[in-house]
């Protein structure tokens, strides 16, 4: 009778614990969603930055024209006159996701605009990502660690930076897909279920759809499999987890147009096939070992080893020959720069010119993952006691992602989930040790465990009251119930067991009461600090949409909305088919917001084209006019921050234009623009610099604003102040002069030389012009 009652009590408690952790998870989801809304509240519901504008435009096209049109979409409004096959060159995951959400809502008659859906896709998927983190960590170290890791991930600044509302970029959904794929892999590994293996392949497919970073998965998982095999952890579960993933995953991945045959042909995927072969060999060996007797087995080993070695050598030789025959060894530029961090800066200036491809600095680690950086080592240690398949995977994950994050700032994003998982494990282990210590040292603990929980929670809430700030306790709130809840889950099996047993066995782990209380207090403080930092980062550092700038001055908030002013002007006051030339940074925004054809955009697929624009910008006016005219350009857009002090303007990016232009057209030489190796625009600058188009378009009539032409970004007076434009005319300049738009003047009746020139010829003349320009400076 009593037994029945206890079992009922335990199921009730069990159910209570489940419901409790369910609600905690919902709260974590709400937290993950709402912490990303600062951008909407502080600014407005608008798409951010550059790439998201492209994704937004693609989504608009998708919702308007349907999926089939989307696959076949040839975009003629960009990369004029080449165009771009969008359907075949874009990772469609994000677009399809947002398109599906939009379609679903609209079919339920909830009329949200495509823009709104796009803006809120990233926060929604962050909530999903934190749930996926919970699942993954739960598989590794149990519910408590899972909930802690989920709470940490919900607000890790590194992830927030890519997923605030409006940051509609691939990473927003890809991180969720990444974590979820890992979860399913671990789940398959733990259960050996083919069902989960299939799901895993599908999740991997979603990841391939979403982001180029899928290669991380398809290299990390083979590495882990190899690790398991080497450490003698091979099991049928491992086989089930890996083999279907490679077969199904590769088949599915090659369905994505942008990947296609790359899924079997590039070196990024090579590791997975190699390991696929190895695991089969190992499986065979294990099978034979089971079939044969000890002695026979030894004979078989020697036979197969000698045979296998020959075959392997042959296969590897063929592979190496294949790989070596391609110039980049079959690796894409971005992957190569991952393996060799100096590769990009040496060979591909376009990749190196992007700030997010630079290696990070130490402060950026602290900024992006904050206290997690200190908790990670503890988490790794916790993963080793005891080491399981799952925990070894997590350790491998953190180690590789730390390396990758050290190569590119952007890949900090991959590190963040790993750091959260590790820290979640570390925190939960620490809390477990401390609370257990407290529990055993309280009198009468063994009998009155219920009372214990009460006492413990009140003690926990004591430090919490001390740090009674609303936001920062959120984290601890989340941790505490999770731990409590976990206790409850264990309780059905042994109400008094842990107390009794650990009294005997784990006495070593029991810490002094005071030390435990203080440590818990300190940990809570640490968590609180983390929360404060995250909220600050979300609110201040990562929420600016970058198309609207604000500054706080003595008379209140000042808004710089120049970009949209210029784009709106372009979209309303120029012909629909006019071509606008600008540096590639503004390509996506121009096509999306101004709906005008651009020459180059942020999808830097054609280096020569970008170099042509770079050459034009670095050439004197006449040569530039000829280049632009040959490209049918009607308007040239430059971004100029000198009047208001906006630092990321075109003059500051100009050296990259020279470098990229010079990489293709050798008559553009970087030293011509540098005075003694220094980049300057003041009176010491070289004549080439002072005569190039970018300089002129940026500083045209700038001297008349204050009489001195003082550039507030470069903090100097400019070199050449008074000059006229002969081939361009100013047609629009925004309120703060941040965007200036010029129109190419029609060719005059009297033109020296030939009017029509081919591009190569015109660049030939450019050389001449620039040389003569050196002799007698313009005007």
């Amino acid at each position, binding site marked *: 009778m*009593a037994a029945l009652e206890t079992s009922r009590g335990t199921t009730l408690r069990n159910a209570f614990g489940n419901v409790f952790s369910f609600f905690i998870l919902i709260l974590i989801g709400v937290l993950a969603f709402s912490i990303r809304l600062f951008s909407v509240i502080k600014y407005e519901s608008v798409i951010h930055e550059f790439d998201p504008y492209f994704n937004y435009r693609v989504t608009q096209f998708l919702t308007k024209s349907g999926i089939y049109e989307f696959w076949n979409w040839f975009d003629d409004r960009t990369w004029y006159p080449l165009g771009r096959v969008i359907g075949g060159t874009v990772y469609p995951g994000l677009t399809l996701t947002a398109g599906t959400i939009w379609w679903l809502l609209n079919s339920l008659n909830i*009329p949200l605009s495509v823009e709104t859906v796009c803006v809120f896709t990233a926060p929604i998927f962050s909530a999903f990502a934190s749930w996926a983190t919970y699942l993954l960590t739960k598989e590794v170290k149990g519910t408590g660690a899972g909930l802690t890791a989920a709470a940490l991930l919900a607000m890790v600044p590194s992830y927030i930076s890519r997923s605030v509302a409006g940051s509609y970029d691939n990473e927003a959904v890809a991180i969720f897909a990444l974590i979820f794929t890992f979860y399913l892999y671990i789940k398959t590994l733990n259960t050996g279920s083919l069902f989960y293996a299939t799901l895993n392949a599908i999740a991997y497919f979603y990841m391939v759809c979403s982001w180029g970073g899928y290669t991380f998965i398809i290299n990390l998982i083979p590495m882990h499999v190899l690790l398991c095999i080497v450490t003698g952890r091979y099991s049928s579960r491992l086989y089930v987890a890996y083999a279907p993933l490679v077969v199904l995953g590769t088949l599915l991945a090659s369905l994505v147009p942008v990947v296609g045959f790359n899924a079997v042909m590039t070196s990024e995927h090579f590791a997975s096939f190699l390991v696929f072969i190895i695991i089969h060999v190992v499986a065979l060996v294990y099978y034979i070992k089971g079939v044969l007797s000890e002695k026979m087995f030894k004979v078989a080993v020697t036979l197969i080893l000698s045979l296998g070695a020959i075959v392997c050598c042959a296969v590897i030789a063929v592979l190496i020959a294949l790989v070596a025959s391609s110039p980049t060894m079959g690796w894409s530029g971005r992957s190569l720069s991952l393996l060799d961090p100096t590769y990009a800066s040496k060979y591909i200036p376009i990749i190196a010119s992007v700030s997010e491809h630079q290696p990070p600095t130490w402060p950026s680690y602290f900024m992006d993952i904050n206290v997690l950086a200190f908790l990670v080592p503890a988490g790794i240690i916790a993963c080793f006691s005891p080491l399981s398949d799952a925990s070894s995977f997590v350790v491998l994950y953190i180690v590789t992602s730390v390396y990758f994050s050290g190569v590119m700032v952007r890949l900090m994003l991959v590190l963040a989930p790993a750091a959260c998982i590790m820290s979640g494990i570390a925190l939960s282990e620490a809390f477990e040790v401390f609370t257990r210590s407290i529990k055993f040292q309280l009198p009468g603990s063994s009998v009155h465990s219920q009372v214990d929980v009460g006492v413990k929670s009140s003690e926990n809430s004591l430090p919490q009251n001390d740090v009674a700030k609303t936001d920062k306790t959120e984290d601890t709130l989340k941790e505490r119930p999770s731990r409590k809840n976990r206790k409850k889950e264990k309780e059905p*099996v042994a109400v008094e067991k842990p107390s009794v047993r650990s009294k005997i066995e784990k006495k070593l782990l029991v810490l002094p009461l005071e030390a435990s209380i203080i440590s818990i207090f300190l940990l809570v403080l640490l968590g609180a600090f983390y929360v404060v930092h995250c909220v600050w980062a979300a609110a201040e550092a990562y929420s600016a949409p970058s*198309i609207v700038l604000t500054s706080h001055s003595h008379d209140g908030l000042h808004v710089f909305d120049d970009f949209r002013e210029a784009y*709106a002007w372009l979209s*309303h006051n120029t012909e629909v088919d006019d071509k606008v030339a600008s540096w590639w940074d503004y390509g996506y925004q121009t096509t999306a917001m101004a709906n005008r054809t651009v020459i180059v955009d942020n999808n830097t697929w054609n280096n020569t084209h970008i170099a042509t624009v770079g050459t034009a910008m670095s050439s004197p006016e006449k040569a530039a006019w000829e280049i632009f005219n040959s490209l049918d350009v009607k308007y040239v857009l430059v971004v100029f921050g000198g009047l208001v002090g906006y630092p990321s303007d075109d003059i500051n990016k100009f050296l990259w234009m020279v470098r990229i232009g010079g990489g293709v057209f050798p008559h553009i030489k970087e030293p011509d623009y540098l005075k003694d190796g220094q980049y300057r625009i003041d009176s010491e600058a070289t004549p080439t610099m002072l005569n190039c188009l970018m300089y002129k378009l940026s500083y045209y009539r700038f001297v*008349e604003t204050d009489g001195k032409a003082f550039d507030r970004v470069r903090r100097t007076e400019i070199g050449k102040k008074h000059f006229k434009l002969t081939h361009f005319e100013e047609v629009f300049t925004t309120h703060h002069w941040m965007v200036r738009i010029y129109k190419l003047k029609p060719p005059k009746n009297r033109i020296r030389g030939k009017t029509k020139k081919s591009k190569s010829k015109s660049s030939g003349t450019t050389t001449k012009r620039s040389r003569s320009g050196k002799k007698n400076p313009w005007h």
Partner: protein
Amino acid sequence: MGMGSRLDLFLLTIAILSGTVLSDLILFKVDRRVDLTSQVVRVTSTLKVENDGTNSVSEVLLAFPDNQVKHLAYLTVTPNEGKGKSKHSANSFPVEVVHPKDMPPALTFYSVSLPKALGKGESSTFDVLAVFTHTLRPFPEKITQADIQLLVFQDSAYFLSPYAVRVQSLSVKLPDARIESYTKLENTKIHGSEIKYGPYENLPPFSYSPIVVHFESKQPFAVAQELVREIEISHWGNVQVTELYNLNHGGAEIKGEFSRLDYQARPHIRGASALRNLVARLPPRARSVYYRDEIGNISTSHLWGDSKKTELEIEPRYPMFGGWRTSFTIGYSLPLQDFLFQSEGKRFLNITFGCPINDVVIDTLIVKVVLPEGSSDISVSTPFPVKQSHETKLSHLDVAGRPVVVLEKNNVVPEHNQYFQVYYKFNSLALLREPLMLISGVFFLFVACIVYMHADLSISKSSASYLAKLQWDEVQGAVQQVQSIINRCLAIHDKLEVSLRDLSRTGDAQSCKAARKAADASLKELTKELKPLLGFLQSSQQAAQILPKVENLVAKEKDLQDRLLAKHSTVVDCYEKKYGGKEIENRVAQHQQKINALRQEVDDLLDFIDEI
């Protein structure tokens, strides 16, 4: 004027029109005032009509050339009740287009019905307000940023009328600026910014004398090529108005450069006629006002209001020069009770037709009134003719869609900003439909969850593996029960240990004995409970693997129990016999060792079973 001369004039008129006079009216006095200060040309004519014939007349004809009629946006005739009375009195006379016979071509006639027929010799005075759009033409058509916009106005110095006009005068009011040129006729006077023609006397019908005025104007021409106003009624207390503007500057187009520098340095010289801002006068208590375009919020706007009105000052993203375009959206919410009323079992919406921004000419105005889902018997009453159509709109959680009344009108000027009414029937209960839908949706979700949790979705219920699984579940349950019993036993052991400790502290043997007694009883009970479980496990095939372990566990536990009890009784004995601490320890040591070993084994076994 004598009778004779009037007769002469009459005869003359007859002669000119070759007998086409419709009635014997003459215009005794005509005062025309043309207002050219804004882009809209407002011509106010005060007519004094006199019936010179014998028959009573109630229709007066007004004539306009066809090229003016094209631009005629608004025409109203109101009785003139002397000066100082409001022009827009409610009782305006009905006006309609007529096509009288035998009239000169290229003229359009409007017939004004007087409320009271004019008898012989009677006269009536009324005001005619005609509003024209797009009649002021910029000349030259393209100017640079530094030039000042020049406009041309063309009209007749004489009042064009099918009737003879006795006395007439015309005054043209211009903005306070330079006048480039104007047609000089006799009796032309210039008075400040006003040009006066006349008075002219005794002119025959259809006299016409063209005049041209060419003058400077810095007025920007805000023209909305299309304005879509969507008025959505929610019976939850809200009227949401969304206005989508497609605006351009209809004045002289800018040519050549636009220099921000010049514009910022000398805004009133370089960019004098640029459109900088617009003021929308919204109804009072408007809230949730927004101003945006397709690429996001436009930050340059100001809002202030009092109990009479709400004023929204908006600036386009860029100053608009001639020929430039932009488009934007204004939206605001209004309280329902200010605009929705009930009469005779019907509800009606009473709201203004035109746009809230003054000085905007609208080429095409589309007003859409979105009524709540389930509205019926829809009818519209407007103060002037508009094109009507119906459509449906699907919005939040609609099933059938909301009926939409679409009203379309071309050439809209601020004079059209009058109230119109939309009548419809709506059952208040229909309000609850959507909340109920949501509630039932969530309810069914929960029901589905409950059903899913309780339903057994396994494919086959008779297969061997399923049965095995069921049995295994039972075995597991039994093992768990065994475990919990063992745990409870262990707990009792702990209690005994505690009682021993208490004993050593207090020396109170009685309480220790009592504890022992209680422990004995509960242990016995637990042993009893254990029996059927063990029996079940022994009988079950599935438990074959686990059974030895469980039996082992039970045996060990029994052993442990015995040892402990033995130890307990020894200690209690010792205390009763008042042995020293050392002595007791010696006696117990053996027991203690065994107990520890057994305890360890039991724990290990529990762990092992736990993992299964």
